[in-house]
């Protein structure tokens, strides 16, 4: 009975209900778009760190987990390797370089990441081969680089860096291609550590280093210690046994990327505010509906419709209208996002879309709950023009 009344009213007044569904669809689009933007921006920041083949990252202590400020020399790496439970350690260095476009019309910024061949930090290739030697002109690039520059295995990539005040160019051989591993919004070029140390941009005043210095180290713990509790215990243990290091998991590391937390909190605030608007819009619509239907509901109760029937009918309408709006909005957003150019940092992952859509499915009933209570309070006496 409740479903019968609910669906009949929606169908017979479909213009009105479609209108509110479209408003819900727009709110859905906005929420999903913000979620996608949030995910896209976050991913562009953290993609490399998120996909690292190690559980722990080591920073120089006192640098507040800043990859730019942190410095770890070979000796520190050797200490790390001696800690029981550490399976392997890889040095990783970060720098920024430019790759001139083939037609000479502009440049592409890339993250120049120094890694040790066959150690944590080096990405697995989808195509081609891994790096073989610590000092060579071989590089692995991510698909962001190949998409932007149209390069493939066997091609040369020209890296432009500024050493002091001089621009220098290095031609490197692409031997492997890995999946997207952006770092700081830039596609990545993975260079053997010694080569990286040689070509990375440096100020002329930089003092010569006595040992190979990277920014961070990536640790792969022993296979039997890879559950979260053991990983956390290993981090504490390493900090106790090795001087002047901060050891954190990947999530902590990427959350420490400058601007990352602020950016995410700003976007999340926008998203929650949009949810709030959604609750108000849906609630307002159904409250007005309820006020318009007082006499009709009173009549239905007078002739024998129970509060359960009336309430369930209202909830069915709210859920149905909201669901139609969310589905329209979600499909629209997926199509919209699919047609965005790659340069826009927007990424609608299944989980983010599901979370946002599920949350939106809840805002309808949440917004409509006031109107449902109002419906339940309508007295059947109103059918006779009386009210107590």
């Amino acid at each position: 009975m409740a479903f019968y009344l609910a669906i009949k009213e929606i169908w017979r007044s479909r213009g009105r209900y479609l209108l509110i569904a479209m408003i819900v669809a727009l709110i859905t689009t906005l929420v999903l778009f913000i979620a996608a933007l949030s995910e896209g921006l976050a991913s562009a920041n953290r993609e490399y760190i998120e996909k690292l083949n190690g559980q722990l990252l080591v920073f120089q202590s006192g640098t507040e987990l800043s990859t730019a400020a942190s410095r770890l020399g070979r000796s520190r790496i050797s200490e790390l390797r001696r800690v029981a439970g550490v399976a392997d350690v890889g040095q990783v260095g970060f720098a920024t370089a430019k790759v001139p476009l083939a037609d000479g019309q502009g440049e592409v910024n890339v993250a120049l990441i120094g890694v040790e061949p066959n150690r944590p930090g080096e990405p697995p290739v989808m195509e081609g081969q891994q790096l073989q030697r610590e000092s060579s002109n071989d590089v692995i690039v991510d698909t962001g680089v190949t998409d932007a520059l149209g390069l493939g295995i066997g091609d040369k990539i020209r890296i432009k860096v500024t050493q002091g005040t001089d621009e220098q160019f290095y031609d490197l051989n692409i031997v492997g291609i890995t999946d997207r591993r952006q770092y700081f919004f830039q596609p990545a070029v993975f260079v053997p550590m010694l080569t990286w140390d040689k070509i990375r941009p440096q100020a002329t005043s930089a003092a010569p280093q006595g040992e190979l210095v990277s920014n961070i180290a990536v640790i792969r713990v022993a296979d039997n210690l890879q559950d979260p509790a053991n990983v956390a215990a290993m981090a504490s243990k390493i900090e106790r046994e090795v001087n002047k290091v901060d050891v954190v998991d990947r999530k902590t590391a990427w959350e420490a990327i400058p601007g990352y937390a602020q950016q995410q909190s700003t976007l999340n605030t926008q998203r929650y505010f949009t949810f709030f608007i959604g609750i108000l819009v849906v609630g307002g619509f159904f409250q007005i509906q309820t006020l318009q239907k007082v006499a009709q509901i009173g009549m239905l109760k007078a002739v024998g419709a129970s509060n359960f029937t009336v309430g369930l009918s209202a909830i069915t309408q709210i859920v149905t209208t909201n669901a139609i709006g969310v589905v329209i909005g979600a499909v629209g957003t997926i199509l919209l996002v699919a047609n965005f150019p790659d340069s826009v940092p927007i990424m609608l992952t299944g989980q983010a879309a599901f979370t946002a859509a599920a949350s939106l499915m809840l805002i309808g009933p949440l917004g409509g709950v006031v109107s449902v209570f109002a419906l339940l309070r309508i007295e059947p006496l109103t059918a006779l023009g009386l009210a107590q």
Partner: protein
Amino acid sequence: MIALEALNVTKIYGSGVTAVTAVDNVSFSVRRGEFVGLVGPSGSGKTTMLAMLAGLLRPSSGQIMIANQEISAMKDSARTRFRGRSIGFSFQANNLVPYLNAQENVELMLRLNGKMDREGKERVRELLVRLGLGDRLRNRPGQLSGGQQQRVAIARALIHEPEVVLADEPTASLDTERANQVVRTFAELIHEQERAGIMVTHDLRMCKYVDRVVQMVDGRISREISERSEILRLAGAADAMDGSGELGLDVVNKPAGEPAVVYGL
């Protein structure tokens, strides 16, 4: 056989110095197959009485029995179920569900009672055809005239074979011709199906279709008229006065042959 009985029913709104007695110690009964007109001026308590008879309002004291069940003592949920099962309603306004067509509005009572089947659907159609709405089955209330809407409401009030049928000012928004048509049909069906019917009305002309007139004044029953000739005289006098407005029943006390004087109350 008594279908509905009110025993010493009193309804007091408010309390203390603000208390208002809307219905004061009223007792009456309605038999199966009897159609009663409940009349009286505004504020006489007839609508409050109807609300209590319908189980929409609990009396302050007294009992209301329908089909030997004391509805005044039932819990709210039980009274709601009882209303759906044993009482048929026709209201003055907002009678029908606006998004359901005529047939669906009548079927509503069968659905509420879990009796909606092919046979029920056919009965609905037959009743509406009989009420002259055969070509209006698919029309929604907004596409029906006031008289047609009232006829749909009558069909809805009767389709689930209730013990009691209650009508609150069913002719209030109808012209004379349609009002007569609606109440005549209502009376016919009540007699034919042997329901107990009560109609609250201001329009004394409609009393010609009832079997008994119960007049309320100031919350009490001031008079009951069951003599057919007196009922027709009352209705005739009201007719001469155009039937509209709040009319008194003092006319029935005038000797035959004297000009009818209908006092406003």
